[in-house]
């Protein structure tokens, strides 16, 4: 387990440390987004007019840009989570850096594909 001081040891040469930090940062971001999302869904209680107006706002370019950040966060957290699971079970320990950078590249590619497919 990494102590709090290691949170601030930002080393680009270490895929493991970068993966650890990115996993936690994307995790915190996704928790914040989860509660924001649930709060915004409260618009559904106001009825069809309020919700449909809200949906129109959500189709603006700025929200779509935010969607791409969200999609990247989800993909990076998920792929990196799978990597950490493998490492946690003692698998592919020698390949952890390669797995991290593969996850990162795959998340970037899938984000680009996902955004293009969505619009």
């Amino acid at each position: 387990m990494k102590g709090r001081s290691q949170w601030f040891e930002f080393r680009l040469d270490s895929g493991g440390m970068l993966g650890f930090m990115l996993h936690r940062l994307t995790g915190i971001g996704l928790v914040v987004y989860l509660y924001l999302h649930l709060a915004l869904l409260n618009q559904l209680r106001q009825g069809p007019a309020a919700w449909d107006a809200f949906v129109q706002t959500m189709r603006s370019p700025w929200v779509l840009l935010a969607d791409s950040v969200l999609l990247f966060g989800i993909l990076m957290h998920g792929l990196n989570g799978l990597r950490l699971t493998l490492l946690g079970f003692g698998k592919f320990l020698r390949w952890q850096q390669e797995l991290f950078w593969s996850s990162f590249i795959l998340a970037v590619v899938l984000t680009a594909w996902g955004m293009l497919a969505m619009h």
Partner: protein
Amino acid sequence: MNKNGSRMLWLLQVVLGILLILLLGVHWIAQHYLAAEGLRNYAEVAAYLKQPIILALEITFLVVITAHALLGVRAILADLGLQAPLQRALDATLWLIGLFTVLYGIQLVWQIVHQ
């Protein structure tokens, strides 16, 4: 918490994470790729949630994502080396937040389905 307890929570987090990949995948595709213009209007949301299988999937998704999120928050805060009483208070708080979140979601869905 002893080492065995921490290991069990880690395993639970892994299982929830794998479930989440599937459930979030379904949610994302249904809400953004299958919906016309990328998002559902009110009538479409209501019709979508009135399907029993979808309703069960969405509520399961809410339970799984809430548990995974709050276990993640717990892991991050536990790394700060909390004393036992503070850790117990944190656990109780996270349980309350989790229960509130799930009840809020179920109540919201119930209202939409029965409107």
